[in-house]
Structures are given as C-alpha cells and as structure tokens.
C-alpha cells in the first residue's frame, strides 16, 4: 500500500493536467454544437462533406452519412480526438512507468527497500491503471454532463456513450500495457514521451492507411485506435467487434506477462 500510494500520488499532477486540458477541449468543442445543430449550417457542412472523396472522409472518421447536427454523432466525432489524447496519455504513462525512474536514477531508492521486483512491477502497474481509469472517469463525467446540457428533451444518449467509452478504455489499456512492456526493454537513455508519441502515430497512420486502401486493409489490425473509433461504434450501433475485443484482451495480457517476465531479471544500470 505504501508503494502504491506513493506511486499514484506522484502521477496525480499529470492526471490533473491531462484531465483539465481534455475537459476544456470537450467544453470548447461542444460549445459549437448549438450552432452546428441549426439546420442551415448542418446542410452546408453536409454539402461540403459530400464534396470530399469518401476515402478522405473515412480517414477523418467521418462518413457520408455523418450528420453533425445530431448530438451523439457530433459528440462521437469529437470523441475520437479525445481518444487520441487518451491513447497518447496511456502510452506515456506506460512507457514512463519503469524507464523514467531508471534514467533519473530514482529506482535505486526502491531497489534498496525490502521489496521484490514482482512487487515493484505490480504496484507500478496498479498505479498507472488507477490513474488511467481516473482520467477516463473524469472525461466520462464531463462528457455526460455536456451531452445532458445540449440534448433535446427525451434524447437518449447514455447507453451509446457508455459503449463508446468502454471501447475507448479497452484500447487505452492496450496502449498502457504495451507501453509498460516497452518500459522494461527501453534503454535508459530513451525518452519515454517520444517513444509513446511515436508509437501512437505509427499505429494510427497504419490504421488510416488501412481505411483508405482496400489492399492494405489488414493493417487495421495494427491500430487499436481504429478498433474502437467512436464514430464507427456509433454508426454500427453495436458494441466493439468480437475479433477486436479478443485482440485487445490478448495483447493486454501478453504485454503484462512480458513486463513481469522481463523486469524480474533486469539489471539496474544507473
């Protein structure tokens, strides 16, 4: 408990910053909704969107059927940027978890305590999971509050919002744990933030390519972001596809196991 509490507290400042920025973005974006909902503008935007090639629309998570004057569709469009931010945050949390202490040398303090590598791994993992979930709770609460504010009476939004969020959280867990596994193999000279950002944009780009090029469609399996894209969840009005769920679960578990296995025998070089 001692280590878990300490580790979690150390991440609080980052959590506050990320939560504040993302909430602010949500508020800003959603503030445009009433003007978007005015039919004239909606038609105009639809007309403009129609003029774009479908491939481009898909790359931006839009489709010809996207109706930005609908509250949930508008929200889902914004949510993919929130997901982007969340995925990057998850990756940074994961990649920093172990390697940051090694590059700063602070890990020496922990290693001198009567705790095993196993306990260190567990506590670090638990604390980043806690922080990520707290971040999701904050953004979910902000989203629900905003949707509630802008909805027309009787407009139902909660079930689909929750589905979008659980999908987003699942993808973030993949990014978090893959980052965590990377954290056990990265050189202590590497910058976890750069690695996190790089990894996200590479996978995102692969997913984007898959969306516009049929021959390369299989690349979509390499982008967790595209598994759970809020606009597609909404468009299909279904939960996340089974195959994606399985991939995410498997990746998460494998990454965690790898991290435990690798960290158990790792040399501390400071």
């Amino acid at each position: 408990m001692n280590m878990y509490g300490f580790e979690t507290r150390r991440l609080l400042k980052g959590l506050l910053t990320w939560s504040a920025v993302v909430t602010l973005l949500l508020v800003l974006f959603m503030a445009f909704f009433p003007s978007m909902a005015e039919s004239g503008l909606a038609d105009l935007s639809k007309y403009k969107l129609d003029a774009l090639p479908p491939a481009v629309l898909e790359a931006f998570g839009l489709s010809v059927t996207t109706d930005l004057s609908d509250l949930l569709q508008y929200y889902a469009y914004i949510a993919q940027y929130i997901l982007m931010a969340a995925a990057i945050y998850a990756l940074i949390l994961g990649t920093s978890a172990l390697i940051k202490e090694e590059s700063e040398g602070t890990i020496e303090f922990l290693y001198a305590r009567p705790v095993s590598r196993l306990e260190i791994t567990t506590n670090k993992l638990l604390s980043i999971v806690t922080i990520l979930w707290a971040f999701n709770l904050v953004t979910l609460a902000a989203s629900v509050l905003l949707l509630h504010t802008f909805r027309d009476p009787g407009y139902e939004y909660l079930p689909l919002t929750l589905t979008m969020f659980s999908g987003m959280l699942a993808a973030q867990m993949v990014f978090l744990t893959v980052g965590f596994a990377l954290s056990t193999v990265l050189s202590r000279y590497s910058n976890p933030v750069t690695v996190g950002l790089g990894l996200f944009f590479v996978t995102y780009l692969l997913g984007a390519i898959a969306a516009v090029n049929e021959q390369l469609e299989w690349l979509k399996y390499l982008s967790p972001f595209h598994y759970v894209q809020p606009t597609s969840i909404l468009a299909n009005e279904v939960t996340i596809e089974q195959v994606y769920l399985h991939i995410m679960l498997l990746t998460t578990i494998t990454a965690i196991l790898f991290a435990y296995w690798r960290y158990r025998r790792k040399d501390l070089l400071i």
Partner: protein
Amino acid sequence: MAVIQTRGLTKYYGKSRGIENLDLTVEEGEFFGFIGPNGAGKSTTIRTLLNFIYPSSGEAAIFGMDCVKESTRIKAVTGYVPGEINYYREIRVRDLLSYAAGYHENIDRPYLERLCQEFEIEVDKKIGSLSLGNKKKVAIAQALMHKPRLLILDEPANGLDPLIQSRLFSRLQEINQDGTTVFLSSHNLSEVQRFCHRVGIIREGRLIKVDQVDELLGAAKRRVIVKSQNDLTRSLQELGIKEVEVADDTYVFVFEGHIDRLVKTLAEHSIDDLRIGEPSLDEQFMHYYEREEDKS
C-alpha cells in the same frame, strides 16, 4: 559468522568487465574498507550484493541468505548509502524519510528524529533543492533508520563537509561497536585507514589484496621530506633508500616499510623540519599492482 560471502562472483556488462572471480568474506562486527580507483568495480560489487544487477556467474550471500533469491529479506536488515544520490526530486525530505520508514516495521521514530538533528537534515526542503552533501545526509538517515545489521556505504564522504564527515564516522564507529557490520567503499585511503579493521583492494575488477589495515599501511610507501643540518645520506642508505633528492639541506625520498624504523633512525639526528606525505592512492595501487605483476 560471515556477513558477506562471495564465491567466484563475476559480472560482465555484455562484453565489458565489471568484476571477475571475486572471493570476499566479511565477518560479523567488522568495519571493512573496500578500496580501489574509479571504475575498479566497487559499485558493481555492491550492486550485485544488493541484487540491483544479476551476477554473470558465481554466488554471493549476506547473512547466509542468497543475494539473488533472498534479496528482499536481506534488504530488511541492510542499510545502503549510494554513491550518487538520485532521490525523487519533487518530494520533501520529511515525506521521503517517512516513505522509506513505511518499508520497515517498528521504526524507532525518536531515533530517526535524533539522526535528522545530528546530521542537520533540512526535513522541510525538497530533495531537488539540496546540494550533494545535504542529499547524502538524507541517504545516511534512511540507511540507518531501521537499525540495520549490515550497513553498506558507497563512498559516503563524497560531498560532505568535514564536520558532518566526522559525525558520520563517529556514528558509524558507534553502531559498529553495537554490533553492526560496516562495509565501506572508498577511494580515500586516510578514511579507510582511520576507521576500518580490514581492507580489500580491488583493481580492474579483481580483488588483489585483503589484509588488516595496519599490515597494509606498514608496507605502504610514503613520500618524506626532511630538512636537517646533519648529513643524513648514510642513515638513509641504511634504511634501504636508494633514490634521494638533496637540495639546501632538504632530503626528499620515498620510504617503503614500517614507519617506526624511519622515525627511530631520524631521531638520531637534529631535524629542522619533517613532512611525511600521505601516500597517494595511485602510489598505493601502483605498489600492489607491481607486486601482482612480480608474482605473475
């Protein structure tokens, strides 16, 4: 009982050498000095003992517990002062100490308070704002707070001002007398000379000598400067000193052997000035190095 025991302990970092075939035994209650130039393998040895790194081959035990398999139990009874202090910069000293205390049962809080006072630790400051010396004091307090049975210090005097240094060493002697085994790595010979019972000398990853401090010093080389109106040439020759620089009644030479012989010989003359230099570490190591080479 052997507190620290290593057999053929070897650590390679990839292809580069850390330590090779280290056989070291430190007995309970000893104040053991572990000495060698930078890069000799002092820190590697300590980090292997504490399982920060895994040995490439050989084995090590502390209090009979395996350094790899039972590291957690070892650390419950061991205190460690690192050479470079890299503690969490944004944390206040007070919080760091109570966090460290949280890893042990039954911490004697008044004792910890006394340690903080004795070493003049500024508990309300953040670690990041402290100088190296002040960080070191925090490291000393966290290493002593749980009254360890073994204390491992990696060049503890670095960065400490002379007053705190002397307090540290008198505290170390005190806890040593109370039964704590002290393992001190250093490249400062005089510090080892003053406090340690036995010394191990490590060079290029190999333990080249372990001996009583007195024995080592007895055989040490010293740089001597004597000013005298008398003619010392003959006496110095009798002492077996071959190379002597003489200028304006001043004799400069390197003396090898027990200091007692030198002092008694010089006492036969009228001496205006006498300076006996601390044998520099390099000289010391060259000394043992040459011997090693002679043997081989």
